[in-house]
């Protein structure tokens, strides 16, 4: 038991109330790691929602980046975390349609939630990450190469990539900074963004497989990883050793 305690790590996952974030939180918690999970919702009972005592939920709505970053830093202080081994900044929102129909509010919401918030959260958790020589992981998207159906969303993900690319060099000796770009995945994100995917959804990667692929990429300490179909498939055969992330 004591040995297990020693090996359990501190993990932060933003946007962990649905989709990839939720599954990632459950996966790390099930291996005995301590997880701080965040989201914009008010949950009445964390244990009922997540089904694991290893997951603590913090409400940190990223449409207020400064407040969200503060809430996360305060939570870690409250839990007396001296270090942070892994932070997965995953929360995001999207909007789809013709770029000329996007309202200023829709543009600014996506930029605030998907880019400004991860920047400010990274800053807030930097001391704890440095203390563990931990890993900072951004969840991007293959849309970061450009997407006419969701131009602003694509831009925010490209912004994360640019951020990671430069910060990785800056932090080289202090923490590992990486970005993982999932392709289309079968979460509820598209419906939330107002996109009807129809039968095309069949070709999307199942959420469980994407979650395995993300964990594998984190174990590999990749700099940048695109979750291709092949990488997704072969990730089925990759699993964490005891105590590993």
């Amino acid at each position, binding site marked *: 038991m004591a040995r297990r305690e020693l090996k359990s790590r501190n993990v932060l996952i933003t946007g962990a109330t649905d989709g990839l974030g939720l599954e990632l939180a459950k996966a790390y918690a099930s291996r005995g790691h301590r997880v701080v999970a965040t989201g914009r919702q008010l949950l009445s009972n964390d244990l009922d929602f997540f089904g694991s005592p290893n997951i603590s939920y913090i409400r940190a709505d990223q449409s207020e980046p400064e407040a969200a970053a503060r809430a996360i830093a305060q939570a870690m202080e409250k839990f007396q975390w001296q270090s942070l081994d892994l932070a997965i900044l995953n929360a995001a929102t999207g909007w789809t349609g013709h770029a000329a129909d996007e309202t200023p509010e829709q543009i600014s919401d996506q930029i605030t939630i998907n880019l400004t918030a991860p920047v400010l959260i990274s800053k807030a958790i930097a001391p704890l990450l440095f203390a563990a020589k931990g890993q900072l992981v951004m969840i991007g998207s293959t849309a970061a190469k450009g997407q006419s159906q969701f131009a602003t969303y694509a831009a925010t993900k490209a*912004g994360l990539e640019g951020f990671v690319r430069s910060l990785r060099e800056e932090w080289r000796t202090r923490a590992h900074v990486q970005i993982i770009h999932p392709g289309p995945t079968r979460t509820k994100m598209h419906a939330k963004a107002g996109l009807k995917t129809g039968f095309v959804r069949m070709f999307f990667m199942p959420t469980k497989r994407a979650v395995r692929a993300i964990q594998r990429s984190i174990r590999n300490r990749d700099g940048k990883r695109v979750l291709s179909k092949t990488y997704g498939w072969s990730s089925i055969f990759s699993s964490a050793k005891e105590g590993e992330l």
Partner: protein
Amino acid sequence: MKALITGAANGLGRAMTDQLLEAGHEVWAVDRDTDALDDLAIKSRGSCRVVLADLANPSSIQRLLRDVKDVKFDLVVLNAGISATGRFEEIPGAAYEKLIAINLTAPLVVASQLMRQNNMAPKSQIVFISSLSHAVGYPGASVYAATKDALAIYAKSVRKPFKKRGVGVTAVFPGPIRTEHAERYSPKDAKANKRMLPEDMAKLILKAASKGKKELYAGKGAGAAKFFGKLAPNMMSKMMRKVIFDKLDSNTY
């Protein structure tokens, strides 16, 4: 021709504004620097329409959009930008919020709303000023780099849908320019003569826009930077770290 230029009062924006005015075009010059705007109004002997707007402020952007509601622009250059250089974790969060608002949110909002309000003339051009950092990375200015990459990808994303409505999109990736902006954010020992003059850069950008070019990599070493940035991105960012980040001795924002 009618043109709208943001960040028009100083540096590169001013050079583009001067050149357009010189050629007899009508220019709406947007800036927050009142003194420089006054100077522009006086020197152009009233031919330049100066618009005071703070692009970090959403309601100021809305007012700008209302002011130009009935104008049809042939050229829009979204040029206004600031930076923040130093150690990422030491720069205040508010500086990053402002940086992202001015460099990213403002140009996206202005571009999409001008399209929505039917402000763009047929066969007109929207120009986004990104940065050469899109090719090489920018350790010591990771959030600036983020905004410029985001802008580049927005330009790429809207190119087709805007084209369908008769509006071309140019993305510009300028290397170092000899402006106050560059002086302010560079390491102290950086050589000024390695930077292009704003007038020369302005000329190249206006030419690319008039030809409807999709992309322009301009400035000293821009071609090589683009080439090696694509070929060996990690090596380039590592080199950028050595020539910039390791030499920055203070935070500027």
